[in-house]
């Protein structure tokens, strides 16, 4: 019985032995066993033959080219954004807008409070607040972006494109018309409200001493908010596909009410931020 077990253990190693996977003491023991066991020698020879036969199979050539076409990559990639329900997209966008407005109101209220009591601590607090504002809104924008990305399940690129709009929104918004679906990269805030929220504080940060343009900001916000469909389309096609997917038009069709609300919220947000800027500037001038 013990002998049989040992024999079986050696048999199990024969295959590895052929491939040079048995080394050292094991190998020596196996070779000693082989020298005395005809049955194992035979099995070893047969396993060797199995390997030889398999290797002698004629090589198989691909019957055709498996090169991928852009369409092949696109058709597989496309269904995912469509799979995310438009309602969910709208909900995420609305939530982002509401959060940004709420945040602005809180910060604005805080600041105006400071302005009214307007005495000590002024040197440090405004800067801190501005920083908090920009950090918080940037964070909100980022969260929105990742939410939007998750909802649309477009891997990676949605997340990376999101931080760009705040830097670029200023320029294209003044020149382009609303809802221009053909506008290239810059005018593609993933979540419009969040992007608007992100754009304003960075402007505040960049030029704190310049007199703010209150009327322009709400407009910019409204415009950014009013163009969700290009954003959606870009989400769809952002794997580098030029083909505009016909199905991507459907999410925007049922969302005009959402867009109006979004625009209103963005306007509120813009006015609030504009007001904040005015107050900041006024206080600095007062100092």
């Amino acid at each position, binding site marked *: 019985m013990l002998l049989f077990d040992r024999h079986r253990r050696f048999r199990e190693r024969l295959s590895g032995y052929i491939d040079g996977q048995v080394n050292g003491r094991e190998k020596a023991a196996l070779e000693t066993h082989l020298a005395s066991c005809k049955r194992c020698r035979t099995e070893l020879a047969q*396993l060797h033959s*199995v*390997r030889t036969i398999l290797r002698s199979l004629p090589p198989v*050539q691909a019957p*055709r080219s498996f090169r*991928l076409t852009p369409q092949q990559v696109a058709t597989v990639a496309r269904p995912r954004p469509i799979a995310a329900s438009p309602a969910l997209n709208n909900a995420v966008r609305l939530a982002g807008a509401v959060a940004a407005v709420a945040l602005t109101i809180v910060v604005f209220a805080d600041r105006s409070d400071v302005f009214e009591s307007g005495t000590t601590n002024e040197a440090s607090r405004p800067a801190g607040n501005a920083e908090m504002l920009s950090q918080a809104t940037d964070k909100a924008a980022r969260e929105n972006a990742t939410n939007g990305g998750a909802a649309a399940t477009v891997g990676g690129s949605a997340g990376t494109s999101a931080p760009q709009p705040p830097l670029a929104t200023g320029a294209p918004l003044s020149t382009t018309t609303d809802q221009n679906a053909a506008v290239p990269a810059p005018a593609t805030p993933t979540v419009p409200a969040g992007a608007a929220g992100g754009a304003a504080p960075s402007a505040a940060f960049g030029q704190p001493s310049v007199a703010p343009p209150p009327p322009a900001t709400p407009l910019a916000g409204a415009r950014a908010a009013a163009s969700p469909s290009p954003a959606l389309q870009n989400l769809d096609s952002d794997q580098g596909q030029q083909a505009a997917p016909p199905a991507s038009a459907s999410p925007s069709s049922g969302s005009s009410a959402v867009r109006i609300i979004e625009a209103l919220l963005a306007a509120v947000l813009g006015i609030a931020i504009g007001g904040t800027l005015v107050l900041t500037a006024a206080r600095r001038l007062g100092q």
Partner: protein
Amino acid sequence: MQTGDCLDTSGYNVPTLNTYDDEPDLLARTRKGDLDAFNSLVERFQSPVYSLCLRMLASPPAAEDAAQEAFISAFRSINSFRGGSFRAWLFRIAANACYDEIRRRRSRRTRSLDEPRDDDTRPIDVADPAPALDERAEAAELGAFIQDALSRLPSDQRLAVILCDVQGLDYAEIAEATAASLGTVKSRISRGRANLRVLLRAGGELLPTRFRQASEGQNDATL
């Protein structure tokens, strides 16, 4: 490319080892979404990948679908490739595509009980059962016989044996390609070959003389 103990893919129309130097570059470009770069890799690996699928599925159309699917998902998930052997990674994706197909077949088979096994099982139809004098016909018959034996193995053993003895991967690469430990790979190959040994012995006269002699020797020894 690694040189392995099992490496003997001489028949493939694949460039030899040192022409793979541009693989990191092609991979880097693929990561940036360069489809042309990826297609260079596709052309390099399409025959081995198709061959793996064909040996796994024993059906040319199914193998074509699985290979195409594997390349598409390889392109889409290229960012999940984190170094190591690209060939092993690609084979892993192809093997998964094959497992999907095997699962689909199983569920299809349970739905229609007495459906015959795939008509494509045999690569070449031996329409005329008369003695195959032609050497090529004989080789084809042998090939079909071996394929049939492979198809009877449990799919894990089949995959391990194909990767080692048909594709010429070494044990480490096989472990990578099957997401298994080295010990598991060893035992799968060992059991797979042992099963094949039994299956092929039943094939008798089809087999090359060397195997027959070995079999006769075995008979002497055991009986």
